[in-house]
């Protein structure tokens, strides 16, 4: 008994010894981003490497705000991400439900195609998508162009489909016998039971939208409509690049996500695991 717990302890120790350097490698750039965001530009480029934060954060942020109206860009990013997440969860759960519950001709073909699109890198899609949205539909610089094209999320569809397929069919049979209409079965039984999966999916989608750079950059060049990553990107081209300001912006972009993830990581991981295994 005693030796067993001891070997367990040794295993844990070894595991931590192996993982700690990895964690440090992963965290170090984040830490340096934070450190740089608190330094004046001459400090960032000084030859001594400083590992501790300084006091220039507010100054940096003021420069940033003057250059790009960063607060507005943050607000736009948040709004876009929230709208995108809500719409996308709605759409993917409806599509997932249809693919899980109804047998129709060509169903497995549809699933195979959706699965196939996951393997396509965005780089392959982005040019035709841009041409379609900007030239054919003439939607460049609109909110619709920013939000709608990425809405159809094949990973989300399969995620939700998996979650619905795992629910016992007898549950829906019981509701059918009771005369509950199909859309109410979806709304009142299937969706509430899929809540953990929807939560996990929401985080993934919110993050995807929050981090999205290429598509908003291409489709949306109007200064008043820039999302935060795009706004930050515009700074690089200026003659005098305010690296401290960029780092302050990067910290503001990263911090909320980091906190959300730390608080929600338990739900997040169990939700993903549920979608994957159960």
């Amino acid at each position: 008994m005693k030796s067993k717990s001891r070997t367990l302890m040794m295993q844990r120790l070894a595991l931590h010894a192996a993982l700690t350097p990895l964690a440090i490698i992963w965290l170090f750039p984040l830490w340096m981003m934070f450190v740089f965001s608190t330094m004046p530009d001459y400090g960032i480029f000084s030859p001594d490497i400083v590992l501790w934060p300084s006091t220039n954060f507010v100054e940096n942020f003021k420069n940033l705000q003057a250059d790009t109206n960063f607060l507005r860009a943050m607000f736009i990013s948040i709004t876009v991400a929230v709208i995108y997440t809500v719409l996308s969860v709605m759409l993917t759960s409806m599509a997932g439900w249809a693919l899980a519950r109804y047998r129709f001709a060509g169903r497995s073909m549809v699933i195979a195609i959706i699965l196939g699109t996951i393997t396509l890198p965005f780089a392959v899609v982005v040019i035709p998508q841009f041409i379609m949205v900007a030239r054919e539909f003439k939607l460049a610089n609109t909110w619709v162009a920013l939000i709608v094209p990425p809405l159809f999320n094949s990973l989300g569809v399969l995620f939700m489909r998996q979650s619905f397929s795992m629910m016992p069919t007898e549950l829906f049979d019981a509701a059918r016998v009771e005369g509950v209409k199909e859309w109410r079965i979806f709304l009142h039984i299937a969706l509430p039971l899929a809540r953990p999966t929807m939560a996990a999916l929401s985080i993934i989608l919110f993050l995807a939208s929050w981090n999205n750079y290429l598509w908003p950059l291409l489709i949306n060049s109007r200064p008043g409509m820039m999302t935060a990553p795009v706004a930050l990107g515009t700074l690089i081209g200026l003659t005098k690049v305010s690296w401290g300001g960029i780092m302050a912006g990067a910290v503001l972009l990263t911090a909320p996500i980091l906190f959300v993830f730390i608080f929600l990581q338990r739900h997040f991981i169990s939700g993903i695991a549920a979608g994957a295994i159960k």
Partner: protein
Amino acid sequence: MAGLTLTNVIKRFGAYEVVHGANLEIADGEFVVFVGPSGCGKSTLLRMIAGLEDVSEGTIEIGGIAVNDVEPSERRIAMVFQSYALYPHMTVRRNLSFGLQMNGNPKEDTERRVAHAANILQINELMDRRPGQLSGGQRQRFAIGRAIVREPQVFLFDEPLSNLDAELRVQMRVEISRLHKQLGTTMIYVTHDQTEAMTLADKIVVLRAGRIEQVGAPLELYDNPANQFVAGFVGSPKMNFLKARIEGKGASGVTVSLRADPRVKLTLPVSSAVAAGSQVMLGVRPEHFVNAGAGDTDLTVRIDVAEHLGHTSYVYATISDEPLIIERPESRHGGDSDSLTIGLSAARCFLFDAEGSRLR
């Protein structure tokens, strides 16, 4: 309330036929049990009656109306599932009222029905819990409650007790029986457990591989099974089947000899023509052996194990490698001998041909 009529009901999944033309008449208020081994099509038949599966061919009538194209909710049926199928995210009170509420039933009427069902099943105190906070037996009770609330013409049960432990199963069995007495509604009950079938049913429908083998009252099936399958399925412990051979035909019937011990001969009245020398099965229930000398012939078996249950004993024995079970009500002590001589009485023996058809 309503009776049911099934006429030539066939079910195919793709090209694969699983129910091969079922004909069945169920009277109003009857308690009918579909019984048969797992995979024989009981659930499929029940789900067709419920409307959860389409009927490939034939007609199903409930209360004299063909319901092939009627939605499940319009059939005036209620169904209790093996997995209970309670909505896990709602309190059980809401589970009971949900269906009615979704269909716009007046609130007072819904509440009255829910209270009524809770009274019948004595589940008042638990109403505000979620299904996950209840034991299996309690969940099953609420699943039945949800069926009662619908005030159906026909109750359908699909193996409702098979997830419960043995003791609770007996208790719920009695309760379902009582419920049937109290409500007087037609009930169709699916199980693979012959004890449940025997104890609950007014009428048993024995199914095998998608075919109805026999329909009858429990004791009818016990006394008069149509074939070897039904004979083996009804009764516990199972009927013994001993290989035998037709020796010849006389005025009082055919004479058979056991293959295990050709000296054991028995003459049975058989009406159908059987060729001398053909192989047959002699069927005798464990409880129908008699004391040595008291029957028409005796046989000697080797005892493997004896189980003494107090009120009776079961002897597990073999006669040249053919196993058999013998019930000995009076023997409280197995004795030390490892062989046993018992009597067979022709009047209690069945005879089946090589295909399992009943000869006697």
